[in-house]
C-alpha cells in the first residue's frame, strides 16, 4: 500500500470514475496506482496536459460531477493551467493532481 494507492482509493470513494492525464517521471508513482486500480477508475491518456484539464472541465460542465486531471511536474503542470482557469472562471468543479520534483 503506497500513498498513491490511498489517494486513488479515496478518489474512488468520492465516486470518481474517470481521470484525464499524461504520465511523466514526476508522476509515475501515482500512475502505478492507476494501473493497479484500473478496474475501478478509468484513465484517459491524452496528448497534451491542456487537453487533460479542458476535458476534465468539459466533463464537469456536462455532468455536474467532479472532473479530475493529472500531470507530471513543471511543464505538465504549466500546460494544465489554461484548462484550469477555464474551470475556475466558469465555475466547474475540477481537481488537478500534479507530480512534484523536490526543489532545492
Amino acid at each position, binding site marked *: 500500500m*503506497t*500513498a*498513491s494507492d490511498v489517494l486513488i482509493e479515496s478518489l474512488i470513494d468520492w465516486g470518481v470514475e474517470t481521470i484525464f492525464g499524461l504520465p511523466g517521471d514526476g508522476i509515475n508513482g501515482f500512475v502505478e496506482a492507476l494501473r493497479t486500480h484500473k478496474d475501478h477508475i478509468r484513465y484517459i491518456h*491524452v496528448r*497534451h496536459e491542456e*487537453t*487533460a484539464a479542458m476535458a476534465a*472541465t468539459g466533463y464537469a460542465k456536462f455532468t455536474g460531477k467532479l472532473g479530475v486531471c493529472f500531470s507530471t511536474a513543471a511543464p505538465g503542470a504549466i500546460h494544465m493551467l489554461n484548462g484550469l482557469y*477555464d474551470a475556475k472562471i466558469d465555475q466547474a468543479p475540477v481537481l488537478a493532481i500534479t507530480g512534484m520534483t523536490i526543489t532545492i
Partner: protein
Amino acid sequence: MNQDYLYQDVAMYNQRLMGPAHAKNIVDYACRTALSHRAVAHIALPIDYQSADMSGEKRSKRNLKGHTSEAFTIPKRVPERLQLEKAARALQGKAKVAILVGAGARGAGAEVIQVADRLGAPVVKSMLGKDVIPDDSPYTTGGTGVVGTRASSDVFESCDALVIIGSSFPYIEFLPKPGQALGIQIDDKPERIGLRYPVEYGLVGDAQATLREWLLYLPRNDDRNFLKQAQKGAEDWWELMEERGTRNDKPMKPQVVAWNLSQALADDAIITGDSGTVTTWIARMKVRAQQQFSFSGTLCSMAAGLPYAIGAQVAYPGRQVVSFTGDGSLSMMMGDLATLTQYKLPVKIVVLRNNTLGLIKWEQMIYLGNPEYGVDLYPIDFVKVAEACGATGVHIENPKRCKDQLKEALAMDGPVVIECDTDPNEPPMPPKTTKDEMKHLAQALVRGERDRARISLTIGRQAMDEALFPASDYGAPARVVEKVTGKDKKEEKK
C-alpha cells in the same frame, strides 16, 4: 518547481502532500472544496511520497487514521421567505420584465418557463445558459451579446425590470442601462449579487429551489404585449437566420453549416463550441430540449472544443457528441484527435476552414479600423490529418450538398472530422451594428484591407438581400413598414 505556488491564483484549495499519512485527508478536503464551490482544487504530489509505503506510517495524535469523511451533499440554498416576498412584490405592476439566464439556471428550465409565463417576460440566454430552455420555446429570444439576437437586444433596450438567474454575463453594454430597470438577481454565490447590474434585490440561492419557492409569491402580469413583441422579434430573427443559413453562395457561408448541422443533430446531442467566428455561428444555432451545449465561455479560450468533446463522450458513451470548431482552434490541439481513435470515442468534429483567424481579422477592422494583419492560416488538409490519426475525414464545400453530407458523416461509426470550407469574408455581425463599428470597418477598407473588394461585395449583397427582413441591420425598410402597418412586408408581398 513549486507548483503549489504556481497554482495559488487558480485553485481555491491548494495543498502539497505533507507525508503519506496526509493522503486521505488531502483528497477529502480537495474534493469537498471543488464540489462545494464549483472551484478548482489542486494537490501537489511530491515524488518522494508517491510510492511511499504506508505500512510503517507514523501518525500524530491529531491525525488519527480514518478521521475524515467523503460524506457530501451539494448545498442547495433557498432565500428567506421575507426576501422572496419582497422581491416578488417589487414586480407588481411591472409589464416589461426581462429575464436573463446563465449556466446557474441549467437544470431549472421548467421553473424558468413558469416564471416567464407568470411575468409575461421574455427569456434572454447568455451563451453559457444556451441549453437552459430550448430555442423553440415561445418564451425565449435566444442569446445576447455580440453573438446574440436582435430580439434580445430589443428586449434589454426597452425592459423596465430585469430578473437575472444564475448569470454573470460580463458584456454589460448589452444589458439594460444602470437605472433603466428594477433589478432582481438570483445566484447561489452571495458575492456575485450586484456584480454586473445594480440590482435592488438579491436572492441568494440555488436557481431551481429558489424559483420554486418564489413562484408561490410572484404576481401574474396580464399585460402580454411585451412578451408578444419579443416573440415577433424572435420570429423575425429566425427567419433571417434561415435566409442566411440556406444561401447557396460559394465559398459556402459559415451560417449554412451551423443551420444544417442544427437540423441534422440527434435530439439529445451534446454540442461543444469553440472561440472565434465559430462562436457567433453556433450561438445562433437552435438548441433543442434534450440537447446540451457548452464552451469555454468566460475565459474564451481557443481549442476547448475538442477536449470538451472528449470529456463529454467519456461521460456519455451512448450520446452523439459534436464539436463545432474552427481551423485556428483545432490546429492548436490537433494531436488529441488521436485520443479519439485510441479510446474509440465516436466524436464528430465539424471544423470550419476559412484559412484565417477570422474573429481577430474582424476585430482588427471593426474595433480598431485597421486592415487585417498576421491572421493568415496555412490551409491544413484536415481530411488527411483525420486519416493520419486513424479517424475518418469528410470534406464539404458545396452548400447544396452540405445537409446530406453532414447527415451522412454524423451517422458514421467512430470519430469523424468534417472539414467545411467557408467564406473568410462573411462578417460575424453583432445583432445591431453600431455607427462606430461601421466607421472603423470603412476606415480599415480604405487603409488597404486586402479583401476590401470581397468584403464590400458581401456587405452590399447582404444589404440588398435582407431589406425585407426586419431582424437584419439592413432591414430598416421592413421595420418601418411593420411599425406603420403592423404587418410584415414579406406577407404583403405574398
